């Protein structure tokens, strides 16, 4: 009986670790720190307040669903990453920048890593990744946060 309980416990922990990995916002080799993740509620608050300093928000995924965001296209494609680079070249290094994709869970999103790596390589100092660990529907649209037309 003791063995059965131990096996069950082992299974539970394995399942827990797996689920945590799938829905986590931070993997071991990801090019961002936990401090660089921006909570959707915080961005929504800023976007809803025209008096607040507005960040430059780049959509580096499929569709710029967030109000005021600039559509660059999926950053996994070299041409789109180059477009982002061109736009970033014109900005001061301390610009407040936010990037987001939101197609898929962070663990398998092909776009956020190239974009964040580019910002890192270009030595920007004030950039964030919008924390959409599941997708832009669940973590933004369903919450009623501001959308583009």
């Amino acid at each position, binding site marked *: 009986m003791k063995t059965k309980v131990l096996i069950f416990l082992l299974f539970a*922990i394995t399942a827990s670790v797996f689920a945590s990995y799938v829905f986590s916002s931070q993997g071991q080799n990801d090019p961002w720190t936990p401090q660089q993740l921006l909570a959707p509620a915080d961005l929504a608050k800023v976007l809803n307040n025209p008096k607040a300093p507005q960040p430059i928000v780049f959509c580096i995924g499929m569709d710029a669903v967030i109000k005021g965001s600039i559509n660059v296209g999926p950053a996994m494609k070299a041409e789109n990453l180059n477009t982002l680079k061109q736009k970033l070249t014109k900005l001061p290094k301390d610009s407040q920048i936010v990037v987001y994709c939101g197609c898929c869970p962070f663990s398998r999103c092909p776009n956020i890593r190239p974009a964040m790596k580019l910002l890192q390589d270009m030595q920007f100092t004030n950039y964030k990744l919008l924390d959409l660990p599941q997708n832009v529907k669940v973590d933004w649209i369903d919450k009623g946060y501001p959308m583009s037309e």
Partner: protein
Amino acid sequence: MRILILAVAVLLVGSNLATLSAQLRGFEIGNKPPEIKLPTTRGDTVALSSLKGKLVLIDFWATWCAPCVNEQTELAKLYQKYKQSAYTNGKGFEIYGVSLDAKKSNWEDFLVTNKINWIQVSDLKFWRSPVAKTYNIQGLPFNILIDGNGIILAKNIHGIDLEKEIIRFLIKK
């Protein structure tokens, strides 16, 4: 002690899998899912209800979703194998693919390249698609199997489990 260990284990699994189970809520087996009427790549509208009388897999997918793309090969095999068969509550098997793509060219190119020959519809609205909202889709891939009367038989089943479910309703000759 044993009870404590079990309680911790249940809590661990429960809390972390809550997100997964959220996807499974909303549409229960035995109910009818809402109607879908969306255009194909050619622009003509195909209603889900027009498939009444067939066993139908409603497949929510997108070309930007890697697991969905991988699954299309498996769906092609199932479609070929089961499309002409008879089922306890339906004659023939059909797939009603609903793409959450945003760009028509991505969607269309994939269908042509991969010779997808079952029904494909999309409003090209990505996660903004009203269908994604109506069906409470929390992530892709997501699917629902319905019988000839439009009743939900199973949901979010993939791989071997999907084929087993089709076989479960198959009338063997």
